[in-house]
């Protein structure tokens, strides 16, 4: 009973805030309402006793990725943070059609399910699974290479200067403006 209530509460929270973030006119509000979505999802994980996953969700998505998103948004002008309804309309028709179609089909699918037993806590299990070399170790280790590549690539792209000819063009434009 309690767990079902919690499930419906978190599910409603996730979907509700997701809708707000879709339809709100102000992009910054949309971004902030993602916080509710992400927290709702982590709540859903908690109802499944996946506590580690839930907290990782909060730490990485709410604390990290949403933060970066906001950081980017705050650097843009407020006037640019409005969006057009027409585009939303087209997007809703396209995406909504796909969603309805697939949801209709998904509803009839027999999904594979576990034995219905929830683990008490997942922290120790996750750690032990990573220690067993023929289970998930290689994917875990390989993920670090993925992140390393992403990090180096991001730093290198972000570090780049203007190419020489472009810099000259910029300088000229600035001088022209000053004169």
């Amino acid at each position: 009973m309690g767990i079902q209530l919690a499930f419906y509460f978190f599910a409603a929270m996730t979907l509700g805030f997701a809708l707000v973030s879709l339809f709100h006119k102000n992009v910054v509000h949309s971004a902030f309402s993602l916080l509710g979505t992400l927290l709702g999802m982590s709540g859903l994980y908690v109802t499944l006793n996946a506590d580690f996953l839930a907290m990782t969700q909060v730490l990485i998505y709410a604390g990290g990725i949403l933060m970066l998103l906001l950081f980017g948004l705050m650097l843009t002008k407020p006037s640019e943070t409005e969006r057009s309804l027409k585009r939303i309309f087209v997007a809703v028709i396209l995406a909504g059609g796909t969603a309805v179609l697939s949801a209709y089909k998904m509803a009839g699918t027999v999904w594979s399910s576990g034995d219905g037993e929830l683990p008490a806590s997942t922290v120790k299990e996750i750690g032990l699974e990573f220690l067993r070399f023929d289970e998930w170790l290689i994917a875990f280790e390989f993920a670090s290479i993925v992140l390393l590549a992403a990090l180096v690539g991001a730093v290198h792209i972000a570090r780049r200067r203007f190419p020489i000819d472009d810099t000259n063009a910029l300088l000229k434009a600035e001088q022209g403006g000053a004169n």
Partner: protein
Amino acid sequence: MSYLDALNYILPEVALTFGLCVVLIWDLVVRSGRRWWETGFLTLGFLAVTAVLLVQRFAYPPATVFGMVRIDLFATLFKLFLVVATGFVVAFQLADRNSGENGRSETHFLLLCAVLGGFFLVSADNFILMYLGLETLGLSSYALAGMAKRSVRGSEAALKYIVYGALASGVMLFGLSLFYGMSGSLSYGGTMVGVSQALANGQVAQVAIATLMVLVGFGFKLSLFPFQWWAPDVYQGVSTPVASFLAVGSKGIAVAAMLRVMATTFGIELHADAGSEFTSSLSALLALLAVVTMLFGNLAALRQTDLKRLLAYSSIAHAGYILAAMATLTPAGFHAAALYTLLYGLMTLGIFGAVLYFANIAGHERIDGLHGLGYRHPIAGAATVVFLASLTGLPPTAGFGGKYYLLTALWESGHGMLALVVALMSVVSLFYYFRIAKALYLKSATTEPKKMSMPVLAGILALLAIANVWFLQFGGLLTGVQQAWGQLEALIS
């Protein structure tokens, strides 16, 4: 299997990981400004070591190590292909006179990362590892594309690449999650059982949706029709060596991974005696995609004036040929696709090398820059003609062999129409490939071209040209592919 035995199986990957760490640290600690070529030679060295280790792995019996890495002949063959192709890419880059800023040692690190990603992509036996491999390959490629510092166009291309790539991999992830939901397993084998059960339960549409979504991810990497928009801009925007990596390494390894995923995930369906409704519609869909891709690539290539843009459309067209072979969903078709991918790599590397060579001399990458250069640079010019013949599929070259086998496979599996389209499109491709040859030999230069000789690059081109002729006898390669495929399919029965 003990931990050390398992580690022995993935020793090439370990060597590569070690190599990329060394390159990164070398770059950080030792390098001084201009000497980026040091890491280039380091990278070549590590690639050579990896290649040697891979060749040793040919003798190993197939095994699944670490629970999700499948080491068999098929994986090793394509890994070797990727390593050799990347070796050529690095060599191109070292030979590139205009590289300047583009020759930063990060490129070498990212290339090694991409190779490692490709390794795990092709030998993954689990969707998690497959996705991670795909992402490593993708992220490294985005970063490589983002290094095109020359122009606004390069930045735009990189941005397009990232956005489309992220979208494609997101859609693919959703498809994978649907497979997981149906089968309750992330391994290919478990998914295979789950898929066949789902199909037996009459959930054809659900499997089809998931399959389509996974196809999007691969389609992006292969630049198949609805997902090909990034390719011309990116190929044009990035430096030529990087473009050749995207066209050969990234695409080739993605083809191999797609072959493995299709053969193992739908293994039961493909081996059923009577072709099920699902496989026939999958085959029809792939055939349709192949036809559209071929048409688009070849027709759009006709009007290009930029060499790399032209090659981008040509590589789209070749992806269409490969997909046509896959669409048969028969072992012979898969063999043909794998074989054609290997040969395609050979000729595409050559033609990109030629573009690099002539662009260095002309100072730009338009076709009119080639005017009259064929006589002045006899080795490179002759090699270019060989590559072009190979790309078109004309007789004394590997391209002919590959296309011949591909057409045979198509014809014998009853896809006569598809074979016809492939043949017709090859004729169309003759027109635009011929334009390059015409520019080299039949047009005379309007301005006096720069006097410049690049003996190393010319040597590489000659080597590739000889290989292109040599592999007209693809029999040995085909036997290898067939053996490899046999090992791959041994899992299913």
